[in-house]
């Protein structure tokens, strides 16, 4: 499903503050697999996820999704790729705080050619799945950290993606909520979605549903 071939990402290339965030990384994640990339802060985990999710282009190397190269696509097609295939859970949730729960979840659906009724139905189903039906009209800023995480999950799944990327998904959750989240991701995996998680939380990489654990250090990847 996801094939990363000798990918590097260098920020501020050629300048004194040059950073090698990802260096010569190769990786293959088959469809329906759950892979965890662990490593200390600043090791390049998030950058690797952004490259896989088409949020940024690699400085060198190639990334393929379902056999198609995506890393050199023009901006418009990168957006289309994200819209169709990728759901991303950000470390900081990246929710719009004064928008309601339902509007936040519906954000990825607005640019699509869906009727308002279909969007409502999809949002209903997602909120039901993350058990936030009763918080539908609440502004996100009034929710707890755990609830905000669930809104972020619902939003990541709004476009029914084949690939789910999660960046430190348990960073703001206690152990119980982290377990709950992993159960939710396990269910997504069972639906055949490919999941890549960046985390250094043992609750995540030690979870039985995780197929592979990879370690990143100074931008380089090694399999555990």
């Amino acid at each position, binding site marked *: 499903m996801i094939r990363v071939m000798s990918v590097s990402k260098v920020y501020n290339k050629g300048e004194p503050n040059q950073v090698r965030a990802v260096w010569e990384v190769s990786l293959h994640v088959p469809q329906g697999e759950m892979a965890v990339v662990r490593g200390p802060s600043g090791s390049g985990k998030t950058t690797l996820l952004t490259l896989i999710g088409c949020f940024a282009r690699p400085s060198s190397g190639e990334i393929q999704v379902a056999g198609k190269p995506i890393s050199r696509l023009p901006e418009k097609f990168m957006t289309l790729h*994200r819209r169709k295939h990728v759901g991303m859970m950000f470390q900081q949730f990246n929710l719009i705080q004064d928008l309601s729960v339902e509007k936040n979840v519906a954000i990825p659906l607005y640019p699509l050619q869906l009727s308002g009724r279909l969007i409502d139905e999809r949002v209903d189903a997602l909120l039901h799945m993350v058990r936030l039906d009763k918080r539908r009209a609440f502004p996100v800023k009034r929710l707890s950290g755990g609830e905000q995480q669930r809104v972020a999950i619902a939003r990541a799944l709004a476009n029914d993606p084949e690939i789910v990327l999660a960046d430190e998904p348990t960073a703001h959750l206690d152990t119980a909520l982290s377990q709950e989240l992993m159960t939710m991701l396990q269910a997504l995996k069972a639906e055949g979605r490919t999941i890549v998680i960046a985390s250094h939380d043992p609750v995540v990489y030690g979870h039985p549903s995780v197929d592979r654990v990879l370690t990143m250090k100074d931008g380089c990847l090694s399999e555990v």
Partner: protein
Amino acid sequence: MNRYLNLLDFTLYSLLRRKWKILFLMLLFSYLVFLFSSVLLLTGAIKNEAKKGVRALPDITIQRLTAGRQVPIPAAYGEKLREVFGIEEIEPRIWGYYFVASTQANYTILGYDNERDAWKDLGRIVLQGTNGVSLGEGEAILGEGILKDRYLRLGQTLSLDTPSQTTKSFQVVGAFKGVTNLLTYDVILLNQRDAREILGVEEGFVTDFSVYISNKNEITTVAKKIMQILPGTRVVIKNQLARTYDMVYSWRSGFTLITLLGCLFAFAMMVWERASGLSAEEKREIGILKATGWDTSDILIMKSWEGLGISFTSFVAGLIGSYVFTFVLGAPLLKSLILGWSVLYPPFTFTPSVSLDQILVLLSLTVVPYLIATVIPSWRAATVDPDTVIRGV
């Protein structure tokens, strides 16, 4: 279509989040449009009224100047004028201004010639006292402003001073109809003999000549001929007067607009502040939208609607406000500023008219810059890699 409806839905919802800020912005915007459009509408309306007044003027007016000052012109000049080919009618006129120190008002005294055909329509514009119309000695027809200024009613007596310091009384036998206020508000119509006495115009002289030309394309040519046969006279063409009125009101309106430049400057500062960059929160929102699958064009559509919604609604509100202010309320305060010095302002209401030019000028000064200031920074933010959002920048 669904995409546009969804984006519109999101835009409206997004605006509602900041309703107080948006409301304040819209009030400010509307007020600015209101100020500028009021000046433009009022100036346009006054110019229109002035044009109507100019249309009633003769094609050519001939005055006599001595040492640059207007003095009575010999009535015999009328005979010389008859020699000029192309003149349809010559009307000698007795008229002048009468200053009243107590009210600081200027009245316009017109001498009425009972015999002249041109005056026969007068009956249609006089309310009462019409008998044909002819004005006998010691009789006067007054404009509404005079009646108010002197607290007079029909049948009462108006006293005016002659140049020889004697006082002459006139019975008010008629009043001009309100619809003619723009032209007649400060007018006192007297018998020609009485007018001569009050204005000090001796027999054998008149104030000026009104000349009507049969072929309107020949007005300038005829005016040149008149200047040749009557040296020392000033020949005023109707179009020159129209241009003068236009210039005077444009100047006054320009002066008023200059005083409003402060508002425009404040608005420009606000627009510049917006154009020079979005807030961190706005950039973050745009980044989130991009990261969740929004295209740059989706963001631009949303931001354009947002800018258009705010600016156009405010623009329409300001324009409607100024229309009501100018054409319904009669532009209180502002009218005095633009109309000029006269104390007896005619209480006429302006004929409502809004030209496309005026709207385009206002749009280009307000809506267009605001729209640019909304869309350009959003476009700049929307072309940034969503990667920056993920990093919490």
